[in-house]
């Protein structure tokens, strides 16, 4: 007890307190990477381009964590559900014959009812199991993804550019979006400094799109309903005593999270240029969860700033380590570092005592 008091009194201690030790270490490591990058001979602008690009792909998915954390539903390990809604929207929009930017708009439009449906059912379920959300969410994610694996084979898609090449039945594991919505956001208003001899490309459109969603999220949290959502997450009993319908607010937050997950995967795809189906959605949850935690969120508190900082730090780590560390020690340990950092972060968050609300 007194030892931690002492620590708190030192200035370093204060910094650690305010910032969280793991976040401090990761920030330090990232700064180290940025410094080492030119020394090891990799091109810094290229690195920055990579980081910004990855940031623009992933930020919306990380943003999808915010509503559920705010309403006290914990870390949304059920993000694959939103991703599935996005995949349905994307594939159906293509199936309907839309191309180019229109296909992106239609993908969002079509995925919305699915997101509301999935999110609604999922939210109703989570209301029945308050306190045990995270474990159930994980497995709801798993089982719905494996269920959709069957559906990708059974839904009679016809568009030849997305169905299996030989049989013509069932969707491919992965297909390119070149003639559909690849780059619709990232190429919009893109700043390309290559003509000036600098390898820096900034996908302004994607960043603007994220900024728009982030602003809406920020604004939402300032409205009456948004305030209620924060209160539900902070202390559900207080909210109930203040006349809030706790279940309804939680449901709303889950639907919002799911919808953002759907939009998030579409944004990811337009940046990445490919659609990955079948078991791929399962790989989307962990990076998003880890990113928001690294950004300083806890199991029941998160802000838009956490999203931005976290995504930047996490994606920075993921993109920089392969090149820089490989150049340094001639071994590619980036994958292992990614696994250890992201999961270690979640474990750290889980073992921290959450004060006030349970």
């Amino acid at each position, binding site marked *: 007890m007194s030892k931690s008091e002492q620590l708190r009194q030192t200035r370093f201690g204060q910094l650690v307190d305010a910032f969280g030790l793991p976040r401090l270490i990761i920030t330090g490591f990232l700064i180290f990477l940025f410094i080492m990058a030119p020394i090891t001979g990799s091109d810094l602008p290229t690195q920055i381009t990579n980081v910004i690009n990855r940031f623009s792909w992933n930020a919306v998915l990380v943003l999808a964590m915010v509503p559920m954390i705010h309403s006290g539903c914990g870390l949304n390990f059920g993000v694959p559900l939103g991703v599935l809604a996005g995949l349905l929207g994307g594939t159906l929009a293509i199936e309907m014959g839309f191309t180019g930017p229109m296909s992106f708009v239609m993908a969002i439009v079509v995925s919305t009812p699915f997101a509301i449906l999935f999110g609604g059912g999922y939210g109703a379920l989570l209301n*029945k199991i308050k306190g045990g959300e*995270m474990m159930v969410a994980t497995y709801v994610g798993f089982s719905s993804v494996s269920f959709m*694996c069957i559906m990708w084979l059974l839904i009679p898609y016809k568009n030849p550019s997305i169905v299996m090449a030989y049989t013509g039945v069932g969707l491919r594991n992965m297909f390119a979006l070149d003639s559909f919505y690849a780059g619709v956001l990232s190429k919009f208003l893109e700043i390309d400094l290559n003509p000036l001899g600098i390898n820096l490309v900034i996908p302004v459109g994607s960043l603007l799109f994220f900024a728009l969603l982030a602003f809406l999220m920020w604004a939402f949290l300032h409205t009456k309903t948004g305030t209620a959502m924060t209160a539900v997450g902070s202390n559900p009993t207080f909210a109930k005593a203040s006349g809030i319908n706790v279940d309804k607010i939680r449901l709303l937050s889950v639907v919002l999270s799911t919808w953002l997950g759907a939009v998030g995967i579409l944004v990811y795809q337009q940046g990445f240029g490919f659609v990955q189906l079948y078991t791929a959605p399962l790989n989307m949850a962990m990076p998003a969860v880890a990113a928001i935690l690294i950004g300083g969120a806890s199991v029941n508190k998160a802000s838009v700033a956490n999203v931005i900082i976290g995504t930047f730090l996490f994606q920075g780590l993921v993109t920089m380590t392969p090149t820089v560390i490989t150049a340094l020690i001639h071994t590619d340990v980036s994958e292992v570092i990614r696994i250890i950092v992201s999961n270690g972060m979640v474990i750290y968050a889980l*073992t921290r005592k959450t004060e006030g609300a349970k």
Partner: protein
Amino acid sequence: MKMKKNFNGFDFLQNNLVPLMFIIICAICIPLSGFSTSYLLNEVVTRMGRNIFLILSLLIPIMAGMGLNFGMTLGAMAGQVALIFVTDWQIWGIPGVVLAMILSVPLSALLGLMCGKLMNMAKGREMILGYMMNYFVTGLYQLLVLYFMGSIIPIKHASIRLPRGFGIRTTVNLTNMRQCLDNEFAILYKGVKIPVLNFIIIALLCLFIVWFRRTKLGQDMRAVGQDMEVAQAAGINVDRTRIISIIISTVFAGFGQIIYLQNIGNFPTYTAHSQIGMFCIAALLVGGASVERASIGNVFLGVILFHTMFIVAPRAGVAITGDAMIGEYFRVFVSYGVITLALIMYEIKKRRARSHGGELLARAQREGGVQS
């Protein structure tokens, strides 16, 4: 009286929903798959021999109220590390298996200790923590096996080393160890091979678990599992007891993985452990266990049902839809689905217990009112 009987029937259905569902699925799929009885029996018996030990390792944490030990994978990884060393030293057959088991113990115990300590810091969230520990320790495992082995830790044999000089190849071959336990005293009965030694080991473990329940430590674990505060007040060291239960489980999981892998005969170095936890937990739940209660009977029933489904589903899928992949995905879906269902039922049950008080009071007042 009559009402009570109905209630029990409903309860029975609810408590045994999952096994009943599986019996139905199996009953439909077995004829569709067109496998011969002896083939099916052979497969199921083999799988029983190699899986039961792993699943039994889950029982002790459930007893201590820590839920399904998703962290059992930690033990599996320890077992694999031990096997890699034994392979490198070229110690084959049963001595190799025994040596691997002995080697795995300190490693499993260490990982179990770490896992248990963290779980004590996250009481009420043990399962998700154990689940995340899987991935975290997988990272450490990769670091060890892919980068440290051969560079820091000496690996003599080139056959298991990556061409670049360090790290282990993606597959470790256990050909010389293959089924050495299964074949010892094996009995062939009407075309069904019965791995007697395996079953003897399993029987010993079952006996151990039965005996363990009757020890002081076992009794303490049951007490801790039901009410940590009361146990603490009675002077039981709750945290320590919980850590011990996870350590035991992890060590057994390590043994289980070694038995499992010697049966298969080789293992993919970096992925062999990843699905083990999920399949074992699914099998246990299929056998009718829940998050807070599981018996040895659940283990046996679960293995039989789950693996029968696992064997017949792809073929049955082909028979129904003409597409083999659908059966594959279906069995994965069912395994995840079962776990999801069990978790949901567990959480709902935890919350339902509270809501009866009100009805009782209303009734008491009405009756009281009549009297006065």
